[in-house]
């Protein structure tokens, strides 16, 4: 996984609450067997009239060329609903490296972190301040110091991230490599558990 340290970029404001993963990437696009190419269908049904690529909806922010950047800023409860990791793949493939919101759904948060897309949870007032900035304004997200700053005004806020996940992102490590590295411990745990009272279930 790519290392992530500082993201400095303009942002795209998505002023919608409870954005569920069915909107981020509708179910009919989940038929692929690889992780690539989901970006073009990101927010598909909000982006196009009647699913027609020649008819972009003018009122949807991704179609508004005044806004651009690697950071998506959304209202609270972003990523709720289905567990589809395709939502994180689609955001990443489209070019987002971070999503800022005042609240994230759990499974989405994990999926994003596992794909090097940083979920930055800020307070509601800070979120509204970001939304008040113009399209040229930039944000700086400093993962090492766990700070997000509105560059134009200098206002900043700290955000939470687990120490473990932070190390992973800063170094480009992922969970699978770690788990593989402790396989010995896992096997010891299994043999103890099975001999205890075979609580663990195996198909016959």
């Amino acid at each position, binding site marked *: 996984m790519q290392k992530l340290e500082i993201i400095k970029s303009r942002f795209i404001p998505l*002023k*919608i*609450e*409870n954005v*569920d993963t*069915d*909107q981020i990437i*509708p*179910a*009919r696009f*989940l*038929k*692929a*067997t*690889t*992780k690539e190419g989901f970006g073009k269908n990101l927010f598909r*049904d909000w982006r196009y009239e*009647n699913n027609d690529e020649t008819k972009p909806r003018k009122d949807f922010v991704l179609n508004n060329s005044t806004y651009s950047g690697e950071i998506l800023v959304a209202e*609270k*409860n972003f990523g*709720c*609903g*289905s*567990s*589809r*990791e395709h939502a*994180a793949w689609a955001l990443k493939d489209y070019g987002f490296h971070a999503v800022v919101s005042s*609240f*994230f*759904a*759990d*499974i989405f948060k*994990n*999926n994003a972190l*596992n*794909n090097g897309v940083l979920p930055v949870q800020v307070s509601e007032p800070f979120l509204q301040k970001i939304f008040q900035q113009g399209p040229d304004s930039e944000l700086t997200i400093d993962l090492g110091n766990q700070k997000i700053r509105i560059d134009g005004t200098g206002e900043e806020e700290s955000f939470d991230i*687990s*120490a*473990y996940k932070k190390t992973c992102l800063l170094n480009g490590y*992922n*969970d*699978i490599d*770690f*788990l*593989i590295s*402790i*396989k010995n*411990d*896992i096997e010891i*745990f*299994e043999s103890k*558990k099975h001999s205890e*009272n*075979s*609580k*663990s*279930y*195996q*198909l*016959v």
Partner: protein
Amino acid sequence: MGKTLFEKIWEDHIVKQIEEGPSVLYIDKHFIHEVTSPQAFTGLNNRGIKLFRPRQTVATADHNVPTLHQELPIKEELSRLQVEALKKNCAEHGVELYGLGHPYQGIVHVIGPELGITQPGMTIVCGDSHTSTHGAFGTIAFGIGTSEVEMVMTTQCLLQSKPKLMRININGELNNAVVSKDIILYIISKISASGATGYFVEYAGSAIRSLSMEARMTICNMSIEMGARGGMIAPDETTFNYIKGRRFAPQGEEWEKKLAYWKTLYSDADATFDREININAAEIEPMITYGTNPGMGIPVTGHIPSFSEIDDKERASFEKALRYMGLEAGVNIKGKKVDYVFIGSCTNSRIEDLRMVASFVKGKKKAAGVEVWVVPGSHQVEMQAREEGIDKIFEDAGFMLRQSGCSACLGMNEDKIPAGKYCISTSNRNFEGRQGAGARTLLASPLTAAAAAITGMVTDVRELFN
């Protein structure tokens, strides 16, 4: 200090605790399906390794499959390729596959319990958010993303932080015609679609204890719709009786040993929760949703909120939802015309749901112009329904009994609701486009859905009882 049900199972599965970090949690059982597994198998193949514990892994094809003529090749090419990829991957990695045509095929969260694979005290995961269903048996069961599917395939473990714990107590007598779907829609309408985010929920209280296993599964199934990681119910005699004798249930001496362990699985009297909510069962009426998230629920006899009842902050989403749904603020929902009725999905497609609908519609006919689909959750449910003559009752009523799969719960197979049409659905999500682009979903119980099938509009089912 006492322990909660969750803590007892959680602690029993910790392989290792990372300092200031997550726990390495051992997973007993891993369910996989065609949509969220292919990229994970690719990950294994890229590393040149085989799936670590195939005998703790079970696969089925459910999301993409047609629900008519399952004996024919799947028409839609991408769906067919995904189902074929699952078949190939399972064969290569030694995983048991209950695919199309197999007598055990069905929706992943229906077949696990039905086959006795889901048992108290287990940790269970699946690349599907409604894995919470299995919590009805006193398990820690939750949905994961595809990277995590790959972790479990590789090491049978996940890195997880312990969630906060919530208990929802529902005590008292349920009203006539109020079923478990109404209970959970009521809870979500009270605490909102994000109210339990960060929590794992235990459901308790006399109203929960009185429910069948099928009804408990419906409740746990929708835990995710209020943001919870999962939901669970302590196992009791109802649970043990349900499991006993099923295909993969323990037998003989092994049964006794497990039973003794299962009986220790409850929250101790002095255990504490981060949050507790008490609900009086008598408050709950038959429920229905009017909006585009499952928290937008009201009693069938109620009205869609008027603008004055909506918080200023929620106003934009409320307006957006009503615009999508083509509904007006402040009006009664009863009498709203519907075009489709969908009885199915991992929320309400078990044999008990079909029996409940059949006993209600027996001798009645569906309204003209309404399309009614009943989609069993598994092949076994379908066979059972046919054996009991339920298929005949549906046929006489003009309901179409289809074959098992996720069907119109999500618009990724052939069963889609056309744009602009209203569908009263027993599934779990009313998101924009969930049942097909532009489709408008009203979530309700099987009884309320069946009542709408008979009258062609949103109906208080109690008015049809004689």
